[in-house]
Structures are given as C-alpha cells and as structure tokens.
C-alpha cells in the first residue's frame, strides 16, 4: 500500500523536476555573475520585483486590466463565432451563404491587420478588443460548426421518433453532442486570446501588463520585464486550467474524458 502511494506522489511530481532544475541552475548562474542581471535577472530578483509591485497595488491593477481586456474581447469574438457556428451548423442555407466568406476572412492572419486596425481604431481599447475578438472568433466558429455537424444522426433520428420537437432536439441532442468540440475550440481560442493581447499591448498601451512591461523597459528594469512575461504565462495557465475544469465537469459522461 505504501509503495503505491509513494509511486503516485512521485509520478505527480515528476513533470516538475525539469523546470525546478532549470530554475535552480538559472538562479545559480545569476547569483554567480555568469549571467549579468541586465541580460537576465535571477528568479529571486523577479520574485522580489513582484512582491514590491504587489504591495503598491500596481501588479493587481495591471493584471486586472489586461484580464478584463482579454475576456471582453473573448466574449465578443467568441459570441459572434459561436452564434455563426450554430447558425451555419443548423441551417444549411446559412452555411451555403456564409461559410465561404468566413473561411476567406479566416485565412488573413489577424495580427497582420494591426496597421489597418490602428488606422481604423486608433491605439486605444477598441483596437485591442477588435484584434482579440477577431482572433478568437474563428476557432470558436469552426469548432462549433464542426461539433454540430458531427452529432450522430442516429441520435437525432431517435430524438424525432421519441417526439422531440425542434427546440427540444436542439437542447437535448444537438448542443450536448457538439459540446466536446466546442470546448476544444474554447481552449484553442484562449491561447490565441492571450497571444493577441500580448501583441496588442506591446503595440501601445496606457494600462495593463503590457504597459507595465514597456514602462519597465524604458527604465531598464529587467526584473519587471521578466515578471510581466511570467504574469502572462500564469494567466494563460490559469485560463487553460479553468477550461479543463469545465471539460471535466461538462464532459463527465464521456468515456474518453473520464480520467483526466
């Protein structure tokens, strides 16, 4: 019994072994002066900078602003993508009309549109929201559309035989059937959301983590620069973790998801 317990603990800790090693070596090299602090500050320095900013309240504020920006863009883009995906998935005429256009627009890398976006929206919030929304919309659209089209037609037929009307069929059969695909789209879109936000905040910002980083760069505060990278990474990890939690809850019934 004890051996099994130890083994599980060991397996859980194993993925952390290499990162921990990297941190230790990085700290050691930094402390020894092999890596000058203006090139790459030590983990400890980054932590200290984080502590300072947290005490001032700047850290929390920046994180809140960036997160809000990202989530709002996600809500807008994801909402549009989801609605279009549903529409095209359920109404064949809509698909014939709209899908090709969506695919054409999708092929334009949204980050390449930045100069145009700045011209249209300036460098304030709208520009960043537009970019995030544009980036997020397509994975959500594709996966929603695909999810709906992949619902087992046998289940739909069964639903009709058992007297389910159009709305009930949609709620009980089609939407739940599409859910696993939609959630994959969400996880993918979350990654794009963060990347787009980072780029948008790098172009220009007057608040948020990007602003914090640019400001720090002006004053050669490399530890704050690294800190902002760490914050972005942590936020990305957190959002992915939440998405996986949703998957585990909503897809409990799925034989493939039972042992995440």
């Amino acid at each position: 019994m004890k051996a099994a317990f130890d083994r599980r603990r060991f397996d859980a800790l194993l993925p952390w072994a290499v990162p921990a090693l990297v941190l230790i070596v990085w700290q050691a090299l930094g402390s020894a002066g092999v890596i000058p602090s203006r090139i790459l500050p030590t983990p400890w320095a980054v932590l200290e900078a984080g502590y300072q900013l947290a005490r001032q309240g700047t850290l929390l504020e920046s994180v809140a602003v960036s997160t809000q920006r990202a989530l709002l863009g996600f809500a807008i883009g994801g909402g549009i993508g989801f609605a279009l995906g549903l529409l095209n998935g359920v109404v064949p005429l809509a698909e014939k009309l709209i899908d090709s256009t969506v695919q054409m627009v999708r092929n334009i890398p949204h980050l390449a549109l930045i100069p145009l976006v700045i011209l249209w929206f300036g460098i304030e919030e709208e520009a960043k929201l537009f970019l995030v929304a544009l980036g997020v919309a397509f994975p959500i659209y594709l996966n929603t559309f695909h999810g709906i089209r992949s619902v087992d037609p046998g289940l739909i037929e069964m639903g009709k035989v058992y007297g389910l009307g159009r709305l009930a069929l949609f709620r009980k059969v089609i939407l739940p059937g599409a859910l696993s695909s939609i959630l994959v789209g969400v996880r993918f879109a979350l990654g794009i959301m963060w990347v787009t936000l980072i780029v948008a905040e790098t172009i220009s910002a007057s608040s948020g983590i990007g602003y914090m980083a640019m400001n720090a760069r002006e004053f050669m505060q490399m530890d704050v620069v690294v800190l902002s990278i760490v914050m972005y990474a942590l936020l990305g990890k957190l959002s992915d973790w939440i998405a996986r939690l949703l998957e585990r809850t909503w897809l409990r019934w799925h034989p493939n998801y039972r042992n995440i």
Partner: protein
Amino acid sequence: MNNRRAGRGISLTVRRAGKRFGELAVLSGIELDIRSGQFVAIVGKSGCGKSTLLRLIAGLDRPSEGELFADGALVTGLHPDVRLLFQDARLLPWKTAAANVQLGVRSGGKEAALTALRLVGLEHKASEWPGVLSGGQRQRVALARALAGEPRLLLLDEPLGALDALTRIEMQQLIERLWLEQGFTAILVTHDVSEAVALADRVILIEEGAVALDVPVALPRPRQRDHRFARLEQLILDRVMGKDVEPAEASQILEPSSLFV
C-alpha cells in the same frame, strides 16, 4: 395470457406499398394485414428491403407507391403510439440511464422511467452513464425507453444483432414476456431465423422487394427450442437460402400428428 390487454395493439394494413431509391426499387407491391397484438417477424437476406419496410411502417420514410394504414388511418409520419428499437441502442451519452428512459415517458416523469427500468431489470443502474454499461445493458435501457411510453406498436430493427448469443436469448425471453404482458403489436426485423421463430406468431420473408413467404408459428408460448421449433426454423431457413419449400409443409409440422416424427 389472460391478463393481456386485448385490442390494445395497433392493427396495420399495407396496400401495394413500394419504395424506390432513384432507379432501384427496393420494395414493390407489398400487401400485408397485421392484426392488433400480433407478433410478426420479417426475415430475409441483407439488402432485401426488410428494414426499408419497417421504416415505411414507422413513418420515417414515405412510400414511393401504395399506402400504409395504422388502425385505419393513413400513415403520413411518426405516430405517437409507435416506438422503434434500433440496431444500436442510441442512448444519449450525456444523460443517465434513467434520464434516457425518461425521454420515452410522455409526461417526462422520473417514476415512470424507474418503473420501466425495473421491467428490464436495470433499476440499479438508473444513475449510470451509458458509457459504462455493456452492450446488452444499453439495449435493455433502450427497450425500457421504448416501453416507457406504453406503445401500441413496437418496431424492432435487428436490435439484438450486436449482442452475444447468450444475452440475445435472454433479451428474446424478456421481449416475449413484456409483449405477453402489455399486448402491443410487434414487428421484428431480423436476419436470424431462430430469433424469428422464438418470438413471432407469424414469419414473413421478403425476397427481391416482395413477400415470398408468410407462415404462421403456432408453437406454444413461452417458446421452447424443441424439435418442432428446430424443424420450422430449418424450413424457413431453407427457403431464405433459396431452396424450394411448400408453405403448407411449414404449417403441417405444427399438426399434432407430426409431434412424433
């Protein structure tokens, strides 16, 4: 047999029904009369059109020619008192067994669903996901779902084909028992002649889109696999496989005098 609800089942009439898919005529000139409460098995080789006929009866497809009548009324689509058991269980994977059976209950009540599960012996699995049930258990849940709505016509489209031999026999006995209790009309499409003889009052063979054989099965219920059973099964199987058989010979073996052959 006395506590059977007489006259409950839907009576079916098929007049000159046919179905073509493009150039291909899968069925043509089908004439059938099925009495209320009768258990009919439709057998035939793969692709002979038996599933197509079942779908016409269910109202899932429209006939290319001819008409079908349920209790005298023209079949134009799905009928609220008709239930279908498919080849695969077709349970919603994201709903528990009980919730799936609830789909079949007209009022959507949980109690009726549990009662139906009890009928098929799966009350203890009510809150399980279909993903953890075995194939046989899933079909039993599907059967509970079909019966939960107290259908007057139950259509079975080779529902036991994917099950192992022992589970299949158990399911056949379960279906027979429930049919005896509830008195619905039942139409079973199967390629398994043994299953047809085990369950049906009447076996119909569809060959090249038309009715080629229509024999009664007057063996006593519950069905025992004795020599009469085997003989009748052999006869029908021979005919399915293309050997010439006199329909009279089929009904003859059910005469008392043939008991001691």
